[in-house]
């Protein structure tokens, strides 16, 4: 039996056990939150502060809120010869329950409309996640995390593809800053890459599993100013992080073997307690979307904005 088949077997047979385990973990977290605490966690490795990227999740664990996260694009040609307008308005809340462990929940509302056609509206499947930061290297500006993302079947609109079954995506997250380059390459030090490697395992054997890699390339103007050279640039520029995100996916079985995804160039403005990002979305293939779309997000670091309210619930795990 292949690993894929075995994982599917486990997911189907032990679905209720997984749910019970998740609830037990949640209850344990709440009970443990009564214990004395120590605080530390954010997307920081040495001089490097990794921003919250819009499409490819970053390796950080923090108490943060993305609201709203808005995207618009025109979908591929439909049966009526239209390119429908696809709009998504979403939100995500992540809560640090231990210095290196965060849980999250997200959802989004969709609108799919085209001239002369009846619109389709509804919510995405509810997504819950857990992420553990297991490696930090300040000198080489490296962060690594591992997590599990679960799309809960039956919680979204069936008209938008929720067939009542769940998807489980174990994911590896990483970030690497280039601050350890030699001084002769000082202007390259503000560069950083982050990425994810995930495998989406469908509960329903008729749905394809997916390999979901993603990568970002970013250049941090805050890093340039504070760790390389202060060029007396305007304050607005000193908060910018130009970024290119490339979220990808390819089917692994059930006849779905084509790559899909987008290339998203844009920028993030990073303030002390919040950030704002906007990116264009360029489709990799005509099957992904028609033409250029746009995505934007307002993001708040709650543990900085309202520090008395938000810090890790538990001590070190």
């Amino acid at each position, binding site marked *: 039996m292949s690993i894929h088949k075995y994982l599917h077997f486990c997911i189907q047979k032990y679905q209720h056990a997984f749910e019970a385990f998740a609830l037990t973990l949640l209850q344990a977290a709440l009970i443990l939150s009564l214990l004395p605490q120590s605080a530390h966690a954010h997307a920081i490795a040495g001089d490097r502060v990794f921003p919250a990227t819009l499409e490819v999740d970053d390796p950080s664990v923090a108490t943060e809120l993305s609201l709203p996260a808005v995207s618009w694009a025109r979908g591929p040609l439909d049966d009526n010869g239209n390119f429908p307008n696809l709009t998504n308005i979403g939100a995500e809340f992540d809560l640090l329950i231990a210095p290196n462990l965060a849980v999250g929940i997200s959802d989004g509302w969709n609108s799919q409309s085209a001239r002369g056609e009846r619109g389709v509206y509804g919510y995405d499947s509810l997504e819950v996640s857990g992420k553990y930061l297991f490696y930090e290297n300040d000198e080489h500006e490296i962060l690594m995390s591992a997590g599990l993302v679960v799309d809960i079947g039956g919680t979204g609109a069936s008209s938008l593809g929720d067939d009542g079954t769940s998807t489980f995506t174990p994911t590896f997250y990483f970030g690497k800053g280039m601050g350890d380059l030699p001084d002769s390459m000082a202007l390259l030090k503000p560069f950083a890459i982050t990425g994810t490697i995930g495998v989406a395992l469908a509960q329903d054997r008729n749905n394809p599993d997916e390999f979901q890699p993603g990568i970002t390339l970013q250049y941090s103007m805050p890093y340039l100013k504070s760790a390389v050279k*202060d060029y007396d640039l305007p304050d607005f520029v000193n908060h910018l992080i130009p970024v290119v995100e490339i979220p990808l996916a390819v089917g692994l079985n059930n006849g779905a073997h084509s790559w899909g995804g987008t290339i998203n160039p844009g920028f993030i403005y990073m303030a*002390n307690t919040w950030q704002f990002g906007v990116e264009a979305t360029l489709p990799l293939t005509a099957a992904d979307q028609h033409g250029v779309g746009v995505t934007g997000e307002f993001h708040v670091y709650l543990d900085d904005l309202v520090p*008395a309210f938000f810090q890790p619930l538990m001590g070190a795990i």
Partner: protein
Amino acid sequence: MSKSMTLRIVSQAVVIAILFGSHTSAIAHAFLDNATPKVGSVVTAPPKIIRIQLTQRVEVAFSHIHLFTAGGQEIAMGPAATDPSDQTVLSAPVTGTLAAGQYEVRWDVLSVDTHRTNGHFPFSYQP
């Protein structure tokens, strides 16, 4: 698990988390905003003091500034102190002697909200 049940569980968890979180001390991050000598600058006179301005107030007892040569040799510095009128400004006198060359300032601070951050930046002394 139904969506309503999931939402109920999550909302309860968030409320309880906020209640527990509200009884604890705060965390926030102090990052470097600017420095004297300026980050990456070339100075023609040896600096008598290293001054850094951070984005949050810091606890002076747990905050430090160190100065190193390009070869990693530490230059003697006096104790760090915050500006009485602005707790985001931390400075320390340079008591050692500087020869011409490249230097690296290393700082580590504890913000008043108990969160540690650190960093480093270069400058050159060319008389």
